[in-house]
């Protein structure tokens, strides 16, 4: 079962990982991926908007797709929204499995799908100006390799 959370608060990847394995002896691998806000080209902040009625539904659907493709013993997806600054964490995918191959593959699959199928929009503040981030074709291409 992959748990989905959409929140404004920061998260602790180590705590999520510990929770996944607590009291279990069947898990052999946990892959955790954390995405951070990068500020290396003048970005001072970004604001993530989302579609509350759709977001959890879309993430749950993406999670179910991963569970149908790989042997997954547990997992957590967290996506933040609101105003974030460089260094803040923004997205977490943690997947537990018996073996590493399924955990790595499912985590990467989920990140690729998140970028194209979850209703989030980013507005960046660079040099005092706001601008909406445009979707990139490369993200569609990364997703389509799982078709």
């Amino acid at each position, binding site marked *: 079962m992959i748990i989905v959370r959409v929140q404004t608060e920061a998260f602790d990847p180590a705590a999520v990982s510990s929770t996944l394995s607590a009291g279990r002896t069947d898990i052999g691998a946990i892959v955790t991926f954390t995405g951070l806000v990068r500020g290396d080209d003048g970005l001072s902040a970004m604001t993530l*908007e989302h*579609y509350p009625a759709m977001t959890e539904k879309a993430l749950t659907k993406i999670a179910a797709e991963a569970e149908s493709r790989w042997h997954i013993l547990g997992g957590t997806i967290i996506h933040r929204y609101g105003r974030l600054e460089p260094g803040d964490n923004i997205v977490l995918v943690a997947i537990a499995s018996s073996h590493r191959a399924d955990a790595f593959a499912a985590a990467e699959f989920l990140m690729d799908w998140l970028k194209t199928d979850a209703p989030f929009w*980013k507005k960046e503040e660079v040099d005092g100006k706001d601008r*909406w981030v*445009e979707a990139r074709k490369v993200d569609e291409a990364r997703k389509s390799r799982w078709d």
Partner: protein
Amino acid sequence: MRLHLVYFAWVRERIGKDGESLDFPGSAITVAGVIRALAARGPGYASAFEDLSCLRFACDQEFIDIDASIHDGAELAIFPPVTGGMRRR
């Protein structure tokens, strides 16, 4: 028929509101038909819908294509392509 429209990101900003409920003639309409009717409502709408290739749609919280039909009472969301996850450059 009545539709509940919701707008996100720059679509919301150009139209100047985050949503509205509107009546449309007939008992069936496509997303393209809704867009045509909305674009005639004013310059903000026209500006939001000037390039259809930059728009994505969801009916009752599921992605749909521009030529799909939507039913009375549906929630139609209109927004730019999504940009979740981290930064890309």
